[in-house]
C-alpha cells in the first residue's frame, strides 16, 4: 500500500505540474532563485544582458525610423536629413539607434572575450557558443548595413570595398554580390537590397537566434560557473526580484548613457553618396578598420575574406577540436584554458592594434 500510495502521490504531483501553466520565457530566463555567484557583476560584467537590452532599443528605434526612411537614391539621404533635423525628436531617435548599434558591437565583442577568458564556451555550452558566434557575425553585418543605409559620402568607400570583397569570394562571390548589390554596380536597387537585408535578412534572424541563445543559457545550466566541490556549503542564492532589479539598474544606466550620447554626440551625416566622385580618403566604419588594414597586406580575397573567415572557423571549432574538456569552465583565467586565453588576448590585441593603426593613419 505504501508503495502504491507513493506512486499515487508522484502521479498526482506530476499531473498538477502538467496542468499548471507552462513557465513563460521570462520565467525561464528568470528562475525563482539562482546562485548569486553566477549573477555577480564581476563574473560577467552584465555584457550579455546589456547587449540584449541594447538590441531591444535598436528594434524600437529602428521601428520608429521605418516611418521616415526611404530606400531610394534620391530619398535615402534626404529622408535621413528630414528625420535628423525636421522631425520632432527624430534626431534623438536616430542618435539612439546609432549609439545603441555601436554599443551592441562593443558589448558583443567584449562578451565574446569574457566567454573565452572564463571558459564559458566549454561543454555543455558548445552549441550556444556557435549560436553566439553566429550572432556576432549577424551584429557586425547589421551594423554595416545600417551604416550603408545612410547613403552619404562617408559610407561610399566602405560600401564599395565591402561589396567588391564579396565578388572576390570563389564560386559564390558573384551570386552574393548580386544578392546584396542587386545589379552590376551600386545603385538604386542596392538600397532596396540593403534595406531588406538590414531588417528582414538580418534583424529578424538575429532576434530569433538571440531568443535561442538566451534559452540555451538556462537550458545549459545557467551562466557558466565552477562545479561545486563535495562538502562545500550550498552557495548563496539570488531571488528573481533581485535579478530583475539588477537588470533594471543596468537598463537605466545604459539608457541614460545612450540618451546622453545621442543628444551630445549626434551621429555623422554627410551629403548624398556619389559613387562617381568618391572622397579622396577611403574610410571604413570603426568596427571594420581592422579589415581595411588587413586589405593593405595583399590579395583582397586572402586578407579581406579568408583571414576573417579563418578566424571565425578557428573560434567555432575550438571547443570541438582543441579545447574539448570541461575543466575550468566558468572561471576567470583558469589554468585549464591557457591556450584559449592566449588566443583571445592575442586576437583582441591584433584587432585593437590594427584598428588603432588604421584610425591614426
Amino acid at each position, binding site marked *: 500500500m505504501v508503495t502504491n500510495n507513493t506512486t499515487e502521490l508522484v502521479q498526482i504531483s506530476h499531473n498538477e505540474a502538467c496542468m499548471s501553466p507552462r513557465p513563460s520565457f521570462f520565467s525561464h530566463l528568470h528562475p525563482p532563485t539562482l546562485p548569486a555567484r553566477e549573477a555577480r557583476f564581476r563574473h560577467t560584467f552584465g555584457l550579455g544582458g546589456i547587449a540584449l537590452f541594447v538590441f531591444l532599443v535598436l528594434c524600437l528605434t529602428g521601428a520608429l525610423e521605418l516611418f521616415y526612411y526611404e530606400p531610394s537614391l534620391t530619398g535615402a539621404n534626404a529622408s535621413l*536629413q*528630414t528625420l535628423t533635423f*525636421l522631425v520632432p525628436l527624430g534626431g534623438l531617435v536616430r542618435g539612439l539607434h546609432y549609439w545603441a548599434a555601436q554599443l551592441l558591437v562593443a558589448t558583443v565583442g567584449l562578451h565574446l572575450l569574457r566567454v573565452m577568458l572564463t571558459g564559458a564556451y566549454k561543454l555543455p555550452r558548445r552549441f550556444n557558443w556557435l549560436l553566439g558566434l553566429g550572432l556576432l557575425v549577424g551584429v557586425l553585418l547589421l551594423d554595416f548595413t545600417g551604416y550603408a543605409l545612410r547613403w552619404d559620402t562617408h559610407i561610399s568607400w566602405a560600401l564599395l570595398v565591402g561589396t567588391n570583397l564579396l565578388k572576390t569570394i570563389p564560386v559564390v562571390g558573384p551570386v552574393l554580390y548580386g544578392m546584396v548589390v542587386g545589379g552590376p554596380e551600386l545603385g538604386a536597387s542596392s538600397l532596396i537590397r540593403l534595406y531588406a537585408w538590414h531588417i528582414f535578412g538580418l534583424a529578424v534572424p538575429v532576434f530569433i537566434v538571440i531568443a535561442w541563445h538566451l534559452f540555451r543559457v538556462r537550458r545549459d545550466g545557467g551562466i557558466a560557473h565552477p562545479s561545486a566541490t563535495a562538502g562545500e556549503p550550498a552557495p548563496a542564492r539570488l531571488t528573481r526580484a533581485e535579478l530583475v*532589479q539588477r537588470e533594471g*539598474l543596468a537598463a537605466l544606466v545604459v539608457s541614460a548613457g545612450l*540618451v546622453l550620447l545621442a*543628444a551630445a554626440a549626434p551621429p555623422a551625416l*554627410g551629403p548624398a553618396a556619389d559613387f562617381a566622385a568618391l572622397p579622396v580618403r577611403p574610410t571604413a566604419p570603426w568596427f571594420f578598420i581592422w579589415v581595411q588594414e588587413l586589405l593593405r597586406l595583399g590579395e583582397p580575397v586572402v586578407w579581406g575574406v579568408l583571414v576573417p573567415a579563418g578566424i571565425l572557423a578557428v573560434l567555432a571549432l575550438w571547443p570541438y577540436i582543441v579545447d574539448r574538456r570541461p575543466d575550468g569552465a566558468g572561471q576567470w583565467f583558469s589554468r585549464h584554458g591557457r591556450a584559449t586565453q592566449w588566443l583571445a588576448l592575442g586576437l583582441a590585441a591584433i584587432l585593437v592594434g590594427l584598428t588603432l593603426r588604421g584610425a591614426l593613419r
Partner: protein
Amino acid sequence: MKLRLALPAAAVVLALVLGWVAWRTVTAPRPVALTPSLTGQTEYCLTCHQGIEQISAAHPTSVFGCVRCHGGEPLALDKTLAHSTLRGGANPSDLAVVQQNCGGAACHSGTAADQNDHIARVMTSVQATYAGAIANVYYAFGAQPDLATRFGIFAVAGVDPAGQPHALAALPPAIQPVLQKFQINCLTCHLSAPAKNSAGFRRLTGCAGCHSLSNAAGTYTGTDPTLARNQPGQTQAQTHTLTTAIPYNQCNACHNRGNYDLRTMTFNVRTDQPTDRLHDYYQPIAQCTKCEVELDCVDCHTADEAMGDGTLHPNEASIQYVECRTCHGTLTQPPQTKTITDPNDIALRRAALNTTVPLKLGDTIVVTSKGEPLWSVQRLPDGSYRQVSKVTGATYTIPQVLGSKCLQKPDEQASSYCHACHAVQR
C-alpha cells in the same frame, strides 16, 4: 551602493538627462521652410539666414530660393552638412562654377540674340582671360615671339575680333623667374583671382566682383544674423545683393589702384590718400574731364565693354569703343539715337534692373556706333540730351558739339584730344 539606493539614483540620472534633452528640443530654433516656385523643393536655409537680403529684384527669394544658385543641402540644419555641397562657397558666380549655378538657357547662358549669353561673354572677356596682359609680358620677356594671345587664366575657345576661330590655353606655371614673379605678383586682378586683402582692393570673384558691392573695409553691413558684421573679409560683399548700379569705387577695386613695375615685376600701390572723388577716381597722372569725374564708369562704358561681347579680344583697347562723341556728337553729327518700340527691347530690360533710370516704350535713347543702347541717355522732346546717373539717379544735360564753338578736328575723336581743352584741374 545598495541596489535599493542605486535604482532610484539611476532613475533620477535618466530623468535629468531626458529633461536636458527636452529643454534643448524646446529651445531649439524652429525650422523656417521656403519652397521656391522655380524648384518646388522645400529648403530650410532661412532657419539660420533669416533676415538676409534678397539678392536682387530679378531673383526673388520666393522664386529662386537659395539652393538653385548656391547648391548646398536644403534640408540640413547643421552648418557643416548644409554647406558641404555649396558650389563656389558663398559666391556662386565664381567663374569656376558660374555655369552650373547661373547657367541654363532660361538664365545666363542663353543666346546672343536674346542678350542672355552673359556667362559666355564674361568667360571670353579680357577681364576674365587676362590674355592681353599675359601676351604683352610674355612677349616683352622673350617667352613668345609676338603679341598674339596664346594663354588665358583658363582655357577657352571662341573667335577673335576678325571672326577667326581662336583658342587660349590655360596659362601653365612659368619657368623663368621673372615670369614666375609676374604670375604671383601681377595676375591678381582678373575675375578668378581673389582680391588683395587690404582696404580698397576688396571684391568678390566672378560676376559678383562687379555686381556685388564691397566696401573699402570689406565688412558685411547687412541683416543676415549669421554673418559677422564689422569683420573685414578678403572676399566679402557689403550686402547679399546684386546690382547694375555699380559705383566707380567698385571698379576701383582693380582699376586705378597703382602701377605695375615690370623691372621688379611688382605692383606698386598708389600712395596718395585722396579724400575727394576728383582725386580718388583716377590715379594722379591721369587726365579726366568733368563728366568722367562726376559720372560713374558704368554710365559711359557699356555692357559689351565691361563684360565682353563674346569675342576673344586681345586687350582692353580692342574691346573699348565708346568715345566722347557717342554722347556729345561731333561738329557735323548729333549722337546716334533710336526710339524704343519693342516692349522686349534690351534697353527696357536693363532699365528695369536699375530702377534709378526711368525709361519707357516710346522714349528715344542714344545708341553706340555698334548699336548698343546707352539706355540712361535720352534725347528729350525738346531736342536736348539728358543723362541719368545709373548709381545716384542725378540728371545731367549733355552739352552737344554740334552748334558749339568746339575746335575739334573730325578725325581726332579720342579722349586725349578732348582732354586737351576739357580736362579738369586736379
